[in-house]
């Protein structure tokens, strides 16, 4: 039997086309935009990548980590060390730093995976603290006081800013594409299966332990990348800034607003977060308090998030991962007009 499977709709194709066009326009931003826009983009890009990784872990892998800042900070410090001491261009050091974070997550997972549920969350936090305290005792990177990235001194401001911006854009597009393709692939199926029932997934041939580890490592890679990127643009690092739990706090906020367990969730959440930040961040304490409250209210009363809401309203998924089996291939013109078969096997 030959199956016809639909993997995207007109709507979702339009979304992807629009996104691609936006990316192209965005790539030319340094030619016509304000430097401050680039700066804002880079910052929000770091939050977005971090939040996407958290979503992958918590929303798809069922691992609610409060310690991803361990890899964020590690990424930042490795980038700095490579740049300041290794003489490597910090932009080149970003992927290397992400790689180191991914490698570091292997032994870390051995510890963290011994805990489940809420204990996993706080356990990962303890591990992040161990990272923070360890780095804080390394005098070469300034100990508890932190240090500055000197490797970029001497490069003109506009070159530095434009490059940072392009690198950030590339990182965001790459992470989004990676997550999207991953979730559309076989592995994505396995991940969803694990989320629904670990026992059954295991009995259907899915290597649950390996899959979870893979997700954890990928998330560490992404978080490390976000961290390296952030500190390339920020130029100053300290253990408290790099390993602060507020990174995870913002990620949780972004994901809960946008909709947990959906690819577009963090993107929507990040846009909302950016807007809130722009208009309210000067309210300091009250702003943060409001974010916390909003996360609570979303969880209690609006768990699908904005992404879920939009999905219900639009009637189609913006970035679908589903496989819809076309039931009667030749007939059913009504469906065919709405749905476009993408792949036929």
């Amino acid at each position, binding site marked *: *039997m*030959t*199956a016809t*499977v639909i993997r995207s709709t007109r709507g979702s194709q339009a979304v992807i086309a629009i996104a691609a066009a936006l990316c192209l326009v965005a790539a030319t931003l340094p030619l016509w935009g304000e430097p401050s826009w680039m700066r804002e983009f880079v910052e929000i890009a770091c939050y977005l990548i971090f939040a996407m990784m958290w979503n992958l872990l918590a929303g798809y892998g069922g691992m609610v980590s409060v310690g991803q800042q361990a890899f964020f900070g590690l990424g930042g410090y490795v980038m700095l060390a490579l740049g300041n001491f290794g003489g490597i261009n910090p932009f080149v050091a970003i992927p290397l730093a992400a790689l180191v974070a991914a490698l570091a997550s292997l032994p870390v997972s051995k510890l963290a995976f011994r805990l489940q549920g809420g204990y996993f969350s706080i356990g990962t936090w303890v591990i992040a603290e161990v990272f923070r305290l360890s780095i804080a005792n390394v005098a070469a990177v300034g100990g508890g006081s932190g240090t500055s990235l000197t490797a970029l001194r001497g490069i003109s401001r506009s070159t530095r800013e434009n490059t940072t911006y392009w690198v950030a854009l590339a990182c965001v597009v790459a992470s989004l594409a990676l997550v999207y393709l991953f979730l559309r*692939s*076989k592995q994505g*199926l*396995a991940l*969803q*299966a694990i*989320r*629904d*029932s670990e*026992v*059954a*997934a*295991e*009995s*259907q*041939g*899915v*290597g*649950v*332990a390996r899959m979870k580890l893979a997700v954890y490592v990928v998330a560490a890679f992404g978080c490390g990348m976000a961290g390296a990127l952030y500190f390339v643009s920020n130029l100053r690092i300290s253990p408290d800034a790099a390993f602060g739990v507020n990174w995870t706090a913002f990620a949780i906020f972004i994901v809960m607003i946008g909709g947990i367990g959906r690819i577009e969730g963090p993107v929507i959440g990040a846009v909302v977060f950016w807007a809130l930040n722009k208009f309210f961040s000067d309210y300091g304490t009250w702003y943060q308090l409001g974010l916390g409250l909003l996360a609570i209210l979303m969880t209690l009363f609006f768990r699908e998030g904005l992404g879920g809401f939009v999905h219900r309203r639009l009637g189609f998924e913006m970035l679908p991962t*589903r*496989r*819809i*089996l076309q*039931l009667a291939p030749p007939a059913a013109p009504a469906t065919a007009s709405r749905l476009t078969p993408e*792949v036929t*096997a």
Partner: protein
Amino acid sequence: MRVDKVSKSYGTLKVTRDVSFCVEEGQTLGILGPNGAGKTTLFNLISGDVRIDSGGITFAGQDVSGLRPHQRCQAGIGRSYQVPHPFGNMTVFENLVTAACFGARVGERQAWDIAAGILDKTGLLPHANKPAGSLTLLNRKRLELARALATRPRLLLLDEIAGGLTEHEAAELVAELKRIKAEGTTMIWIEHVVHALMSIADRLLVINFGEKLAEGEPVAVMNSPDVRRVYMGLEA
């Protein structure tokens, strides 16, 4: 496939005691026994969901007792659960695609074809794009079977898939199982619906209190006084 003196305890409760049996390739073994006799536990031991305390399990000449469940599945042991465990948020079709991709280790495209074929055969095709969580119990049980089939098993473990079926449905199921059997698949089937089991099993195994009570040719087993008393509750 052979099971050699396997035992399992939960705390002080010995659920399986030194059970041994073997199934020839292509044959169908039926397992009977009162509730809580340890039948499902036996399946859990074979599929690897639960580790055995002692004894060994050999499948197709390979000792599988040390393998993880997913490895056993990939080795060809497919199972369905007594309490259905569908991937509730995925569609029925995706449930099967997952099983085919990872259990039978085929590529996506091929998995689609396998999945669609099995859906057709098991009558789930109309439900293909529904979330599995929205199925009725009956269809969930069908899905259990379909998903197990999608892993292309050489040995199929079926846990009470006929329970609650009407006469007509049960007959259809038996016919389907006979087809599967004819393709050369080995089966072990736990079932309380005795007549359905009788119509397909080559041999029967009766378990009581984690121990083998009787084993052998179906009619002979069913007529043995022990079985009539313990299982059917009939004073022989």
